[in-house]
């Protein structure tokens, strides 16, 4: 095990895959000479040169599409977005092209591409820089979506994503890049896409939490443990395909569930997981499933409103109290 920052884990995954396969390349705004807006590509230009580490203009639609075309034509591009908030401009290429080309050509054309970058809010950056897009992309057939919470998951899953022959969206967070964690130093460390992980065992309630929300769940679990409420935390890691069996197994044990989701409430991951739980484990539930999400409101700038807007430990504790009838 080695302790790595999140950004180092991501860089290591890209580095290893680039070393292994000539077809892998990375492009995006400021990825090369600036060493990455968030330094996730630091040193890669020096190591792999201008052919494979490529600065792009601010043309998200254009360079995402160039990535798609290059993938169709035999390369394995990693397309970095400065954040997924800007990938909205590239949505046509991701949603209308990358996800559909194989199907509509009757299986003739593969599109092995990774779209990656930070997702969701990164503090007081206002309404246009703060949205979580993982559930939105998961809506579309043909896309795999990953949003990890810890360096170890990030490394193993990013390597899988780069090797995957389908389009994969891999999401990170500006606010987690500095986060440190133990990362396996197993050679060629791979975590399969679609496998969640039980990150804390507990008997009273299941918390489903991925991405930044995982860390909120950990804090809430600590609080609750003081009151002898033991939370089981499941980090799905991959949003789609979703590791439903892992979640259902846990519900069968705890009979209660709170889902944490950094997206707005309507039609998000929390909505989907909530539905699936009632379909698959209705008879095991001792309380309606609850969720903690952003409110149905844009991100405000003001610090106090932002704090109110963003999901809090207290909201998680309250939700747990609700499903355990402790209030």
């Amino acid at each position, binding site marked *: 095990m080695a302790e790595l920052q999140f950004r180092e884990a991501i860089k290591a995954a890209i580095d290893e895959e680039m070393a292994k396969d000539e077809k892998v390349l990375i492009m995006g705004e400021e990825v090369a000479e600036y060493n990455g807006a968030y330094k996730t590509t630091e040193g890669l230009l020096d190591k792999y040169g201008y052919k494979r580490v490529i600065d792009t203009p601010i043309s998200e639609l254009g360079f995402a599409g160039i990535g798609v075309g290059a993938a169709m034509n035999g390369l394995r591009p990693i397309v970095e977005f400065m954040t997924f908030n800007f990938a909205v401009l590239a949505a046509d290429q991701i949603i209308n092209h990358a996800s559909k080309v194989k199907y509509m050509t009757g299986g003739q054309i593969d599109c092995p591409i990774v779209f990656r970058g930070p997702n969701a809010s990164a503090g007081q950056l206002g*309404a246009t820089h703060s949205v979580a897009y993982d559930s939105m992309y998961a809506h579309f057939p043909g896309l795999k979506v990953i949003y990890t919470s810890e360096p170890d998951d990030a490394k193993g899953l990013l390597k899988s994503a780069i090797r995957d022959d389908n389009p994969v969206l891999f999401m990170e967070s500006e606010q987690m890049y500095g986060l440190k964690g133990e990362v396996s130093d197993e050679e060629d460390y791979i975590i399969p896409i679609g496998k969640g992980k039980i990150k804390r065992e507990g008997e009273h309630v299941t918390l489903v939490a991925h991405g930044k929300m995982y860390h909120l769940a950990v804090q809430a679990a600590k609080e609750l443990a003081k009151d002898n409420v033991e939370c089981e935390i499941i980090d799905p890691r991959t949003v789609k395909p979703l590791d439903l069996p892992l979640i259902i197994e846990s519900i069968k044990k705890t009979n209660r569930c709170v889902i944490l989701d950094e997206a707005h409430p309507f039609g998000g991951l929390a909505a989907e997981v909530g539905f699936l739980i009632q379909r698959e484990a209705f008879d095991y539930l001792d309380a309606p499933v609850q969720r903690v999400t952003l409110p149905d409101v844009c991100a405000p700038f*003001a610090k106090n*409103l932002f704090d109110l807007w963003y999901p809090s430990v207290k909201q998680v504790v309250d939700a747990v109290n609700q499903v355990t009838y402790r209030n």
Partner: protein
Amino acid sequence: MAKKKSGNVEFAPRGIGDEKSGAVQKGVDLPAATKSKHKDLGLSAAKLKAMYEQMYLQRRFEERAMQQYQKGKFGGFLHLYIGQEAISTGTTFALNDDDDIITAYRDHGWGLCRGITPSEGMAELFGKATGCSRGKGGSMHFAKAENHFWGGYGIVGGHIPIGGGLAFANKYEQNGRISTCFFGDGAVDQGALHETFNIAQLWKLPAIFVVENNGYSMGTAARRHTVADIVDRADGYGMKSAVINGMDVFSVYEKMKEIADDVRKNSEPWFVEIRTYRYRGHSMSDPQKYRTKEELEEYQKIDPIERLKTYILENDIAKEAALEKIEEKVEQEVLDAVEFADNSDFPKDEELYEDMFVEDDPYFHT
């Protein structure tokens, strides 16, 4: 079957370290400044002093803002306009007060020009309820709609079509107003610009699209992110165009006035490249390794505020003491603004849910 090629492959052009003979790289080549004197331009002594005050205000406002940011008084992004003030000032003096202005996130100078008071501006940076956007927007979203300043926008290129839309409404209403849309050199690379230019020319929209080419898009020099001279884009659409020296407020004023008159008369769009330079980093967390200190100093030597000051003194329009008085007044205004922002209240909790919909009591999903 074609033969396989060998040799070095590269895509994006290389940046610094690649220049010849140790010459200082230049972010932008400035065209010559206008030779016109203030009288040729119809600018009175009072107007010149007002211009000076406006530019000096923008500069001091942002220098104080930076200080407050560093003190931790507020968070988020802070993109400073310092170095580019001749553009906002020359333009607003050239336009009618009810002509539209829309810009990107580097928007403080524009807001101050269009009547956002230093207090309202500073309070917005602090995220206070008394801010011009009630603390909802912060640095990137200054706005004063009643003065036809439609605000700053944070998605690069996103507001270019909107600038066209403002002009569309003016043409529709036949109200004689024109619209101006400002964006950075980085935004030129967005598809939105090209779609908008085509429609604007096809539909003869009364709009001026202006790229404030400050030589850099974040850490990427313009020649590394965009081809040819930016202004040449206009030719492809048969659009009228001009290049202006943005370090000289007279040049901006003169040309923008001429262009505004033309747009008002003929209802046809223009594409204008105003060349300028940003002195500070892209935002507050930019190590600026992509440019040299020498390059920055080249442009600071031709500072637009100093230039106007020198003109005023050399032409005996005002005495040093009179300018000092203006400076002191501005300094006080900005200090008062900081105090005002500091003492203002944050928005009330319930304001989180305000401004989403027009209804008083809208539906929110839970």
